[in-house]
């Protein structure tokens, strides 16, 4: 598995989207479900950031909360989502007014939804639907110009421009998905959020679309947040991967580091739940147990009940994202595990336990 070639300097800090301490609750009653607890994530310009984790761990919630698209009874209870424009301006999406938010959507930050191929209106031709999206934001553009732009966009995602006059039912699932990607790129956004864009497609189509996104990214220079539970796909497309567990980000590192040198026991478990295509054979093991109930989270580390490296401090101290306690590691990566955080363990009055060799691979 080879990663998409990373242009030198791509990972230098030039953030386009900074999510800081974002908290989300579901439910308006006295005991809501805390689905996201102070998650922080930075997306750099031109980067493909993968969000991975089990179902229900908050991947989609994170993306929808950052764009304020969570339906009721979702409620953002704190944090900031800073968007840095091309001109150097910074705006907090969470404090935007409705009008600002509406103008910013699609223009700055476009989304390809889960099952996006059903997002097309069946009674309109696809060309018109793309043109509508353009004209909604740029009313000065004529319908003819918008349709020409739509044709370019379709060409860009590998669909013949004469398909502009096709109705959604005349296109295959993969083509509809590409139309949605074309539509997302219509206003040249800086951030593209893709929520499991390939889940409903076969592997061949998945590969084509993923390659297309990578190629378009290199050409147009937008950033991508790619949400999926398919870690192997992510390792291939993403520059950086954030692993989520029970509403928290537990590891954030480059794709190759996550794949070859996982530092969190949960990332390690995820990587051992699918077979590698190349390289030495390794033991295939799942992760025992199931994720905790987000309405009644245990104290300390949320992963401790399933963790093979659990020790006494895990039940009492809540881990925070810190640089892993492995000499020679990339200083930009971070992990939320007490095995890597002897200072916090000692401060809470427990005896630190060294990092197990499985989590300190070189």
């Amino acid at each position, binding site marked *: 598995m080879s990663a998409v070639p990373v242009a030198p300097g791509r990972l230098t800090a030039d953030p386009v989207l900074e999510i800081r301490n974002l908290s989300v609750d579901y439910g308006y009653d006295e005991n809501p479900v805390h689905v996201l607890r102070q998650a922080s994530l930075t997306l750099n310009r031109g980067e493909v950031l993968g969000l991975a984790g089990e179902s229900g761990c908050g991947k989609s919630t994170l993306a929808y909360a950052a764009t304020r698209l969570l339906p*009721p009874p979702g409620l953002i209870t704190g944090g900031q989502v800073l968007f840095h424009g091309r001109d150097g301006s910074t705006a907090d999406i969470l404090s935007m007014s409705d009008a600002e938010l509406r103008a910013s959507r699609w223009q700055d930050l476009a989304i390809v939804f889960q099952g996006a191929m059903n997002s097309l209106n069946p009674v309109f031709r696809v060309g018109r639907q793309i043109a509508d999206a353009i004209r909604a934001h740029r009313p000065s553009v004529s319908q003819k110009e918008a349709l020409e732009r739509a044709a370019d966009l379709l060409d860009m995602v590998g669909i013949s421009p004469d398909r502009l006059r096709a109705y959604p039912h005349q296109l295959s699932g993969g083509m509809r998905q590409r139309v949605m990607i074309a539509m997302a790129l219509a206003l040249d956004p800086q951030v593209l959020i893709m929520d499991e864009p390939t889940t409903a497609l076969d592997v061949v189509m998945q590969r084509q679309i993923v390659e297309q996104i990578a190629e378009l990214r290199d050409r147009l220079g937008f950033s991508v947040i790619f949400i999926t539970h398919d870690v192997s796909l992510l390792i291939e497309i993403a520059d950086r991967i954030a692993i989520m567990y029970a509403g928290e980000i537990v590891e954030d590192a480059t794709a190759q580091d996550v794949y070859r040198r996982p530092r969190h026991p949960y990332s390690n478990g995820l990587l051992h739940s699918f077979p590698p295509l190349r390289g030495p054979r390794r033991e295939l093991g799942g992760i025992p147990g199931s994720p905790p109930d987000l309405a009644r989270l245990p104290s300390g580390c949320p992963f401790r009940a399933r963790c093979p490296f659990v020790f006494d401090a895990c039940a009492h101290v809540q881990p925070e994202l810190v640089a892993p306690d492995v000499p020679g590691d990339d200083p930009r990566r971070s992990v939320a595990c007490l095995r890597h955080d002897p200072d916090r363990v000692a401060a809470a009055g427990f005896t630190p336990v060294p990092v197990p060799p499985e989590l300190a691979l070189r």
Partner: protein
Amino acid sequence: MAVETSVLTDTEDVATDATAPVAGKRKLLFLRNGKAITGLAILGFFAVLAVVGEWIAPYDPSAVSPDILQPPSGAHWFGTTHLGQDILSQVLVGTRGVLVVGLVAGVLATVIGVLIGVTAGFVGGAGDETLSALSNIFLVIPQLPLIILIAGQLPSAGGLTVAAVIAVTGWAWGARVLRAQTLSLRKRDFVEAARANGERTWRIVLAEILPNLTAIIAAGFVGTVTFAVLSQITLAFIGVTSVSEWNWGTILFWAQGNLALQRGAWWWFVPAGLCIALLGMALTLINFGIDEFVNPRLRSTGLHARTLRKRGIRPRIGFTPVVHEAKEDRS
């Protein structure tokens, strides 16, 4: 075996213990909705009046007295008519007729509407065509003239007769809406899955489809009750039904016939008019309450409307509300 059963019963006990308080709470959830409570309170007030109205009425509503056309006073709280009849007594005694006709007509029309609408939507084909044609015919019949005709022809057009006539002419709208919704529901995956499970048709209709129609049925019921009350009052007002049987429409009939407005006798028609408006409002509020309660997505919002207002949250799709309540101490 014995061990196994004991284990099974144990877990069952635990399960019921854990869910029992929740289930108890859920039954009362509907009553925690402000709109529903207000509506039910007003409706309950009128229901009590309907039962005890005849006994607590201070005078015989038809009894003539020398106090002619008196404005409200201590002796006659709502004043008197041109014959010296006590209007408060007329309103109190008239409540029963209004409520009985409204409820009977509402229940009858809803039952007919559900039977015909859901059947038409679910069976499809020729049956659907026939039943649809039937409801279409009833839809285009001008209701009020027909009610006037039938009520006028019947020898004793009492309350229940009027209710039956209103129900027979007023069910088609509900059936139409229910048929459309059933058509959409029966193609959904969960109905297909139920069919694939081997569930019987009647079970699919009762257990899978009807719960999804609750809001529409309730809305139809409340709408029909309102329509029935108004129709009955209209009939009484224009003098088609017996004018000696007291209801709010009869009061308005006499008020109109004796030029109450021109004489400035506002107390003659205002109480009955207000009662009609209040009853209509109560039914509408109950309808809102049902709507918010039946839809699980709206339920939380409806239940916590007050706290949401206090916290400044306006739940909308597409613009997630933001409150800065969570601690923000992480680096």
